[in-house]
Structure formats: structure tokens, C-alpha cells
């Protein structure tokens, strides 16, 4: 990551206005969104959106032609281009021909994308943004920090200062007054403008219709008063039919601002009369700018299903800390990272793709069903392919790809960590490593790994065997979790075998774009885990389970290596997470929890992969409650704890405040124990609680349940 980028993160994190406003908004957003969707089947709506948008992106050329034909038949002039420079040229030429001196604009991300305002200013044409947020940003000489709420990073005091400095002195930080001021100052501009510029939210090919959604009413004025209306439309806004409008109009306001519908929706399909009765000039610019390249990419075409609602910004635990400006000048947040890589260039996304913590929170909430974390991972992979892995990373992966070397180094660490070890924790590390222990303690490497201690457990011999995939953390830091798992499964009469050749699941490499390394890890593990005949391969680490169940297959696909696909699928079918397996055994009557127990009050933290990829948020809760624990749910129980593998090492400045929030909500429940199913989350949360000196215990479900079965 560049120093400049790190600095921009640092600046954002230390801006209390930004983090305060975004934090409050992100909390209110979820409530208002949920309320707006009452009585609506979100899955049906998004299926309709995906069907319409995926169909459109599979035939942009055809629909663009059809749109042009239909709109022109109704009096519009349609200009198609793939080049942003030509968009600006077309508009400037038109302005010159028509003697345009003043331009008013309603919000258009496409115009931001091509930096249209600069072109106008250079040509000596006065241009005013009329969306209040955009106007503030324009006056403050900034760029939007959010796709829907461009000025969300500014306080009323800052807005008053900008208005006073740029428009008229003496403006007070009173929101209704500031809004009235904007109305009064912009009204004459609407009335005097020679040209109005809008974007569009939807463009319908069969009718040549543009659908424009606003709340302030500025797009209605911009498209009504000036004698020339220019609409700049990215071709991804195309849909085939009028009937495709409604699902988008159902989701966009609900997902963007928690509204059932915005105040105004205009559907413009052709020429209308001007205020003096003359026919209005309607120019529609269909801009490609790499969108059709994207449509041809088997993975990234999915991103064209975006309706620009900004949900992925609003629910992102990272965005709410750093805001939009660290992402760049135009498109922000998760989807913005992807759009920047395509509309600008891949390397522009090099730094910002690293901000995605891969928690998956945005995935089930996206109206366009875009798997944003997956696409960001793909960007990461392509970046690594393009520019190669750094020497440091290469060295690390060389070790990880050699299991014997990797494991012997961990054994050495168990000894060399001694100067820093206090009990089971490392509380301080020197020098450049200090960031890692500034906000949480780290677990010490266990004196003996699970792969050694497990052999000493006397297990019943049974024809029913499961293989245990421990993962590095349980194997080398938390062997007691593995020992508890063996104990529990033994009670069900199952023998647990530990294939010694198992190695790192490859997640760290994969999540850093090093797919070759992840692929080798996958091969080694397939060999180790499929060597013996077992019914299940169980893991108590959700990230590892996801690797066994999904990522091996996905990695092979990305690498175009299909020789081991059958084995990967065999393993996928066998892989199961600890809580789901144990819940099944309880339901089948093969494991019985002790009855009549009244145990301490706990709270449960949902680990990202368990909740959103493995869909197993209920089994651990059921088990813990059946065991006799009182469960007190924390606020945002399924929000990431900030660990996310190596993320907390690369971006400790972001990981720390995410953890701080998590700890706050844990403490608010009054529970004496916080339980979770991921050793990585245990590492983060237990380390954070230790650093604070909190009496609350953080445990893996496997530990909490270890002695609870008959």
C-alpha cells in the first residue's frame, strides 16, 4: 500500500465528523431499510432486477441500437460513444453551436466519471450542480464521498462556512436555513440556464425512455426549464422493456434511502415543448467507457447488475469508518472499487481493493445480487498476476507451500516467542510488529501443537470415523479446542482421525490474490484428507470449512486447473463445520446434553464465513441454549470483528476500531462470556478483551460445550 493511501486512511479515521456521521447513518440505515421493505419479497424483486439487467448486459449493442432508434423516432438525438473525451466534446460543441453560457446539472455519476464540470469551466461556461449535496461539494471544491449522499462527510458548520465563503457571507449552521438559502440561490440559475444536464437511473430500449429519480425536484426543473436537455447515460442503465422499470423502482429508493419511492420519478421518452412552446432539444449520450468490456468478462459482467443504491457502502464495516474519499474521486465503497478498476484502470484499484475485509455483509443485501467481495478478490488475483507478488509475500508463500518447513518454523516460534510471552498471550511486540499488539494481545504459539497432543487421546475404536481438519490456529495456538472436539465426537461413538499431512487451507494466500499458492495448498490437503475413508471432514474454523467446501473448487476454476476437480468436489461434499455436525448428532439422539443445567449468561458473535457462506447461525445458538445457557444477543451480532486473517496485520488502524465497536456491544449485553465458532475471531476478541483487562471470557463453542454432554 502506498504511504499516500495509508495517510488518507489515517486522516479519515481521525475525522470525528466523518466517523460520527457515517456511524450514526449506518445504524439508522438498517432500520429504515428493513421497514421500507415490509411486505415486499426482496428475493423476488432482486431476481427480477438480475433477470432484466443480466439480459441487457448480454446484448448491450442490440439494446443501444434499439434505444437510439426509438428515442430518435420520438424527437431525441442519441449520441453513442465509448470515449469519455467524445462525450465532453459533443456537449461542448453543442453548447458552442447553441450559444450556451449557463448550465444547470442534476446529479449524474456518469458526468462525475468523465469530470465534465472541469471541461465546462475550461470552456468558460458557467456550470452549477443543483442537487444540494453536489452543490455543496462543488462549492467546496471536493469530490463526492458517497454515491447517494455526496456530502455526508460534512457538518452543517462546514456547509455554512462554504456557503459564506463561496456564495454570500454570514450563513449560520442551521439546516433548514441552509436549505432555504440553497433554494433561493439556485432558483434563478434554473430559470436562466440555457442547458440542463441530467443522468438517468434507467434507460428503456423498447420505448426510448429515461427514468430519473430524485427527491429534491431538481431533475424536473433541469429537464423542464432550459431549452436544451442533455442526458448522460452509462449503457449499463439499459433495460429491454418498460416492465423492467418497476422492480428497479421498487428496490432503488428502499435500498438507497429507506423510502418507498423518491419524491419524484420522471419518465422522459421524447421531445416535449419548452415553456415558450418551441420543441425542446433532447440529447441523450449513451456512454460505454469499458462497460461493454466488462459485459464480456465472465466474472465481472455481474457488476453491471448494479442499480447504484449504495447499500454496499452503507452496510460496510470499513466504509463507515473511513468514508468515501479514500476510495478515489468518483465511485466509492465496494462497488466503487470494482467500477474504478474498470472505468479508470485496474491499477487504480490496487490500494483500495485492500480495504475490503471480505466479511460478505453486503452480499445478501445487494439488489443486483452482486458478490462484491468475490469480485474484489478477483481484482486482487488479477493485480497479483499483472504485477507479481511482493518479495516479502513471496518468501512467506514459499514457506506456506512447504508444509514441513512451515510447521517446523511454527514449532521454533513456540520457543523463540518466550521473551514476549505472558501466560497464553503475547501482549507486546517490538518495532514494526508493534501495530499487531497495540489494540489486542496475540495468542502465544502453544508449546505442543494439536498434531502431537491428539495422538495421546485415548479414543474408542469405531467403524464410524471422521477426519478432523484443524487449520493452523487450532493446530498451533489453540490445541485445546481440537481436544474438546475429539472429546465431544467420541461421546457420539465417532472416532476422530487426524491426517498428519494436512496443511494451511490456502485462505491467507487466496485472500491476498496468490491463487497459485492457494492452489498448491488445496492439492496438498486433498491428498491428505481424502486418503482415508471417512464420512465427514469436520473443521472448527469456518474459514477453513469454506476453503474445503467452496474455495478449493473456486481456486481451481480461476486457475483453469481442472484435473483435481473431482476430488475437490468429493471433499466439498464431506466438509462440515463443527456446530452443524454436532447439532445434527443431537437431533439424531446420538449426543445428549446434560439436562436441568442453569448456566451463565452468554452472548454469541457470528463469524462472517459461518453466518454468510455456511449459513449456520442457528446451530451453535441452539446447542448453547439447549445446554442451559441464557443467550443475550448483542447489537450487530453478525458484524465482522475486524480480524479477517491477515487484514488485521495489513490494516491494523481499521481492524482496531472495528474490534472496539464489537467489544462495546459485547459488554452492553452484560454477559460474562462471548461465544463464537471461529478461532480467528477468538484470537481477535479474546485478545481485545485481554488488552482491556475485561473479565469477559471469549470462547469457541467447542470449548463452551466440551463438558456439557452426557
Amino acid at each position, binding site marked *: 500500500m502506498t504511504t499516500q493511501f495509508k495517510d488518507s486512511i489515517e486522516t479519515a479515521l481521525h475525522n470525528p465528523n466523518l466517523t460520527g456521521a457515517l456511524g450514526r*447513518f449506518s445504524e439508522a440505515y438498517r432500520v429504515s431499510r428493513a421497514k421500507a421493505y415490509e411486505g415486499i419479497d426482496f428475493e423476488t424483486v432482486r431476481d427480477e432486477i438480475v433477470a432484466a439487467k443480466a439480459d441487457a448486459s448480454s446484448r448491450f449493442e442490440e439494446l443501444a441500437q434499439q434505444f437510439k432508434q426509438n428515442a430518435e423516432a420520438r424527437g431525441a438525438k442519441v449520441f453513442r460513444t465509448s470515449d469519455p473525451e467524445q462525450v465532453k466534446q459533443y456537449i461542448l460543441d453543442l453548447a458552442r453551436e447553441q450559444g450556451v453560457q449557463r448550465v444547470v446539472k442534476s446529479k449524474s455519476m456518469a458526468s462525475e466519471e468523465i469530470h465534465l464540470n472541469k471541461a465546462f469551466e475550461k470552456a468558460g461556461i458557467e456550470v452549477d450542480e443543483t442537487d444540494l449535496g453536489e452543490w455543496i461539494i462543488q462549492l467546496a471544491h471536493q469530490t463526492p464521498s458517497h454515491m447517494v449522499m455526496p*456530502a455526508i462527510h460534512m457538518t452543517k458548520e462546514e456547509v455554512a462556512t462554504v456557503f459564506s465563503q463561496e456564495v454570500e457571507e454570514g450563513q449560520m449552521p442551521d439546516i433548514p436555513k441552509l436549505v432555504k438559502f440553497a433554494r433561493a440561490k439556485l432558483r434563478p440559475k434554473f430559470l436562466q440556464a440555457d442547458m440542463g444536464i441530467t443522468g438517468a437511473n434507467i434507460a428503456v430500449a423498447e420505448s426510448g425512455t429515461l427514468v430519473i429519480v430524485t427527491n429534491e425536484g431538481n431533475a424536473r426543473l433541469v429537464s423542464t426549464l432550459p431549452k436544451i436537455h442533455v442526458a448522460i447515460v452509462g449503457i449499463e442503465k439499459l433495460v429491454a422493456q418498460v416492465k423492467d422499470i418497476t422492480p428497479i423502482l421498487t428496490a432503488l429508493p428502499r435500498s438507497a434511502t429507506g423510502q418507498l419511492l423518491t*419524491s419524484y420519478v420522471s419518465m422522459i*421518452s421524447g421531445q416535449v415543448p419548452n415553456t415558450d412552446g418551441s420543441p425542446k432539444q433532447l440529447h441523450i449520450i449513451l456512454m460505454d467507457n469499458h462497460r461493454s468490456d466488462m459485459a464480456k468478462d465472465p466474472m465481472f459482467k455481474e457488476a453491471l447488475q448494479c442499480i447504484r443504491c449504495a447499500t454496499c457502502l452503507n452496510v460496510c464495516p470499513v466504509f463507515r469508518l473511513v468514508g468515501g474519499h479514500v476510495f478515489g474521486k468518483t465511485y466509492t465503497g465496494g462497488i466503487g472499487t470494482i467500477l474504478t478498476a474498470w472505468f479508470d484502470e485496474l491499477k487504480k484499484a490496487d490500494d483500495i481493493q485492500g480495504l475490503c475485509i471480505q466479511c460478505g455483509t453486503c452480499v445478501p443485501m445487494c439488489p443486483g445480487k452482486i458478490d462484491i467481495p468475490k469480485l474484489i478478490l478477483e481484482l486482487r488475483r488479477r493485480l497479483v498476476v499483472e504485477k507479481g507478488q511482493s518479495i516479502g509475500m513471496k518468501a512467506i508463500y514459499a514457506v506456506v507451500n512447504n508444509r514441513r518447513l512451515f510447521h517446523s518454523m511454527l514449532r521454533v516460534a513456540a520457543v523463540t516467542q518466550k521473551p514476549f510471552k505472558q501466560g497464553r498471550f503475547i501482549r507486546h511486540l517490538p518495532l514494526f510488529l508493534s501495530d499487531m499488539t497495540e489494540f489486542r494481545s496475540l495468542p502465544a504459539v502453544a508449546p505442543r501443537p494439536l498434531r502431537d497432543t491428539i495422538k495421546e487421546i485415548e479414543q474408542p475404536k469405531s467403524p464410524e470415523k471422521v477426519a478432523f481438519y484443524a487449520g493452523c490456529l487450532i493446530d498451533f495456538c489453540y490445541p485445546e479446542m481440537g481436544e474438546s472436539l475429539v472429546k465431544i465426537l467420541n461421546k457420539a461413538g465417532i472416532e476422530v482421525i487426524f491426517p498428519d499431512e494436512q496443511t494451511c487451507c490456502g485462505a491467507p494466500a487466496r485472500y491476498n490474490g496468490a491463487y497459485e499458492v492457494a492452489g498448491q495448498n488445496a492439492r496438498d490437503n486433498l491428498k491428505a484428507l481424502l486418503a482415508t475413508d471417512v464420512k465427514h471432514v469436520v473443521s472448527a474454523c469456518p474459514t477453513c470449512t469454506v476453503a474445503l467446501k467452496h474455495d478449493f473448487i473456486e481456486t481451481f476454476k480461476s486457475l483453469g486447473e481442472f484435473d483435481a476437480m473431482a476430488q475437490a468436489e468429493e471433499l466439498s461434499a464431506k466438509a462440515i463445520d463443527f456446530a452443524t455436525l454436532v447439532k445434527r448428532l443431537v437431533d439424531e439422539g446420538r449426543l445428549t446434553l446434560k439436562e436441568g443445567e442453569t448456566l451463565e449468561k452468554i452472548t454469541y458473535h457470528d463469524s462472517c464465513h459461518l453466518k454468510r457462506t455456511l449459513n449456520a447461525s442457528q446451530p451453535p445458538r441452539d446447542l448453547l441454549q439447549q445446554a442451559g445457557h441464557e443467550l443475550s444477543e448483542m447489537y450487530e451480532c453478525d458484524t465482522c470483528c475486524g480480524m479477517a486473517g491477515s487484514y488485521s496485520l495489513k490494516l491494523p488502524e481499521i481492524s482496531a476500531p472495528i474490534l472496539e465497536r464489537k467489544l462495546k456491544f459485547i459488554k452492553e449485553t452484560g454477559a460474562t462470556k462471548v461465544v463464537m465458532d471461529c478461532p480467528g475471531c477468538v484470537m481477535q476478541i479474546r485478545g481485545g478483551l485481554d488488552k482491556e483487562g475485561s473479565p469477559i471470557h471469549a470462547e469457541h463453542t467447542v470449548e463452551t460445550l466440551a463438558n456439557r454432554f452426557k
Partner: protein
Amino acid sequence: MSHSFESFKTRAEAVSAEVHRFGTQEEATAFLLSFLQEEGVSPQEGAVCAAGTFLDGARKDDLKVKAPGLSFEVSQAASASSKVGISQLDWGIAATGTLVQDASAVDKRLVSTLPPIHVALLGTDRILADMNSVLEHLRPQELNYISCITGPSRTADIERVLTIGVHGPERLIIVVVDDLQQVMA
């Protein structure tokens, strides 16, 4: 129909529109006159009204006499200087409290965008369930400008604080009339 109206009213009021329902056009007219009076509409600070079935014909002449300041000559200048804009809307949507109109005629947009108060007239039987039902009657395939209006103009662009009345009207008064038989748009 009355169920649709109740849902329409609830939704529209939830977004700060003011909803009034009258049995007859006479009652609605009386309300309109008293409203214009209360708002102090006068030749100096007027009201503009766009063409529509309800206020055309004989009633128009009557209104002109009784409401000085009410003009049926819509222009950009008249709309920009008026306090109240009046127009008849084509359809209502019960699910969202939305008004929909064929706004291809510029007058209809001028009176509903520029004055600070917009009075919208609608027949009770014109309230349909949802957007899809309305788009079967007002077809983008045929009409060049369709406007959907849901509550007054609003913004939350400063500190996410909801503020009513930015560029469009700060008040939306919806007058729903039972015996108003609208001609198909």
C-alpha cells in the same frame, strides 16, 4: 376503492403530503377557495392552475371571480412568482401514496415545480394498487413525459437531517374527489 384511498392517504401523509377527501366537486371547490384565501392568494401573490377536466368550463369562470389572483394562464414567469400551483393528476398509487400524471404539457410541470405549494386534484376512483397498474394506463411507450410525485420536495443532504422543500414545492396538498369522473388521460 375506499380501501385504496385509506392506504393512499396513509402513505402520502407518511411522506408529509396533506390529504383531503370530498364527496362532491362542489365541496372540493369550496375547500379550494377557502384554502387560497387562507394562504392569502391575491393578484400580488397569485396562484396558477394548469388545464384539467375539473377546473375547466363553467367552474373556471366562477373561480376567477371568487379567487382574485388565481390565473389559468400558465407561463414560466407566472409560475415562478406564484405561491400556489394547481393541477389535476391522472392517477394515484395506493402502495406508495404517489400521484402520477402525463406531464408532456409543460404547464403541468411548471405549476407543480415552481410555486412553494402544489395543490393536486384527483378522482377517488383513480387510485390504483401499484406502479405496474398505473403504467398500463400511462404508457411510456406513448407519452413523452410522465411525472410521479410522492410527497413534497425533500433533502437529507446535510447531516442526514430530513428537510422539506428544496427545489420543488414545500407543501403538497392532495384533494381527492369522489364524484370526479376523469376522462382517460
